[in-house]
């Protein structure tokens, strides 16, 4: 019993991280119909920026955890957002009117460029940040206990907050309406006076910012990272996006949570060696019965 609860908590935090990264995939797919293969590497870049930000803040003699956390979040989200903007500007916008495969190849190229650029500038070895927040909450359950570290609580809190703010922005504000209009009919939106290029840039920036939020939280939790860390988590987040229905924002969050939960439960109850096999089998199963994902709408694909 206690192990199920423990894995539920772990799965929830893992899932919310997947969900945050999946948002970037799903929003970009929704608005320009491309899969941004460089998104996982944007996450990886944000892990490095986190380390740099923490180093900078401690260099200036700041030691209290809340200030370091807020400062790091702010710096990393801002710088990674800038990365997102630049990537869209140089790698995708010039190919806006060419075939969709061209953009796909350009995205793979961008992914390799980012990995090698980080490897060159930061070294190929694994890097780490010190553990800043220790301690845990213990809840007695029957004869065992469930342990929730404060870091896990923080991850859960910040990622749910991030998702909440984003949902509000997309559903209620001007910018959100512009995004949804551009998503449904880009040319028509432009004829109504919406600068669609700017909206697309904004979507890339939002995606990168959400990935950066995940990057800061995971880096603070695990401590270690290298230039290749974006690949596997990127694939997982992409899976989450597809699972929830790519193009749908609530779908990405739901997909992330389902993927994280099932992975953690399988690892805890059956075998942690085969947890990836299980999560991808789940994807296959769901796609067999719902080809457009859980919340996705069936769409006629015109590739």
């Amino acid at each position, binding site marked *: 019993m206690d192990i199920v609860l423990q894995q539920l908590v772990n799965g929830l935090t893992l899932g919310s991280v997947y969900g945050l990264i999946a948002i970037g995939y799903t929003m970009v797919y929704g608005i320009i119909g491309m899969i941004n293969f460089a998104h996982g590497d944007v996450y990886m870049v944000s892990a490095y920026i986190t380390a740099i930000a923490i180093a900078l803040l401690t260099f200036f003699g700041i030691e209290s955890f809340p200030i370091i956390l807020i400062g790091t979040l702010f710096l990393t989200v801002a710088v990674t957002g800038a990365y997102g903007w630049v990537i869209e500007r140089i790698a995708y916008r010039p190919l806006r009117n060419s075939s969709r495969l061209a953009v796909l190849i350009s995205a793979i190229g961008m992914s390799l460029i980012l990995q090698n650029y980080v490897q060159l500038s930061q070294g190929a070895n694994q890097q780490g940040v010190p553990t800043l927040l220790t301690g845990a909450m213990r809840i007695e359950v029957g004869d065992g206990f469930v342990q929730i570290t404060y870091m896990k609580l923080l991850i859960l809190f910040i990622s749910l907050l991030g998702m909440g*703010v984003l949902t*509000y*922005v997309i559903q*209620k*504000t*001007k*910018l959100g*309406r*512009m995004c*949804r*209009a551009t998503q*449904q*009919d880009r*040319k*028509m*939106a*432009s*004829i*109504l*006076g*919406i*600068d*669609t*290029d700017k909206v697309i840039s904004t979507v890339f920036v939002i995606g990168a910012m959400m990935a950066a939020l995940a990057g800061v939280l995971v880096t603070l939790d695990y401590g270690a990272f290298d230039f290749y860390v974006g690949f596997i988590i990127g694939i997982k987040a992409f899976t989450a996006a597809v699972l929830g229905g790519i193009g749908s924002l609530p779908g990405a969050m739901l997909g992330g949570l389902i993927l994280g939960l099932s992975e953690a439960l399988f690892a805890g109850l059956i075998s942690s060696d085969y947890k990836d096999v299980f999560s991808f089998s789940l994807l296959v199963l769901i796609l067999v019965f719902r080809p457009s994902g859980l919340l996705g709408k069936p769409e006629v694909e015109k590739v």
Partner: protein
Amino acid sequence: MSQENILTVENLAMHFGGIKALNDVTFDIKRGSVSALIGPNGAGKTTVFNCLTGFYKATGGSIMLSACGKETSIIKVLGEPFKWTDFISPVAFFGRLKYKMFGGSHLVNRAGLSRTFQNIRLFKEMSVVENLLVAQHTRVNRSLIAGILNTKAYRQSESDALERAFYWLGVVDLVDSANRLAGELSYGQQRRLEIARAMCTNPEIVCLDEPAAGLNPSETEALTKMIRVLRDEHNATVLLIEHDMGMVMDISDYIVVLDHGVVIAKGGPDAIKNDPKVVAAYLGAEEDEEVTL
């Protein structure tokens, strides 16, 4: 504004590879008029509209829009290729560079021209009122921070936008459907909503592409009335493409007839009705009485 013509099209050409869809189209639209663009199927009417609204980048010629207190060259704001003279004059160079980087069809709308489509292009997954709000974004306080914090100025501008949206819903008689999804509306309602959305961008000239297609006679009559309202009460110039000749002759002050990408006649409804070239284009000319253009 003093100038009489709101839209001046000169020698407009549009080629798709070897196909010349438009060849030398020239006409003027007077401010405050209702004008119609007619012609047989495939004459290039919609292509003219697509060039006017920045949907296509015209191959040649010029389109000058004189609205919102300034002259706008529609071809220029879409971003033209550089010419060698640009490298001598920095002003021309940066002007062109600016539109190459930031230009696009959204600027045409901001210059005061909006349009509807022959096949309806509403945002089907948004509610009716949201469709109208999207069209007004250029005038609303757009700051994201203001939106998240829900500041007073933001709420004020949102409620103004809502008020305007409901005003237009009233004009097109859709107030009861305000919160339904646009995709759920009936065909005639969608047509009216599209016109309302075009008007929400506050244009000085609105281009309607076959607004009466698929409407029954009483709906067409209501549409005719509505177009008069647009002109008389909202100072909008209306340019429409239409196949319903009864409606065209009834409503238009000025008619331009296109055939095979060339203007074959222009003038008032009575002159057009009796123009032999127009009759020939619509009914087909006898082989021996060659119609010269």
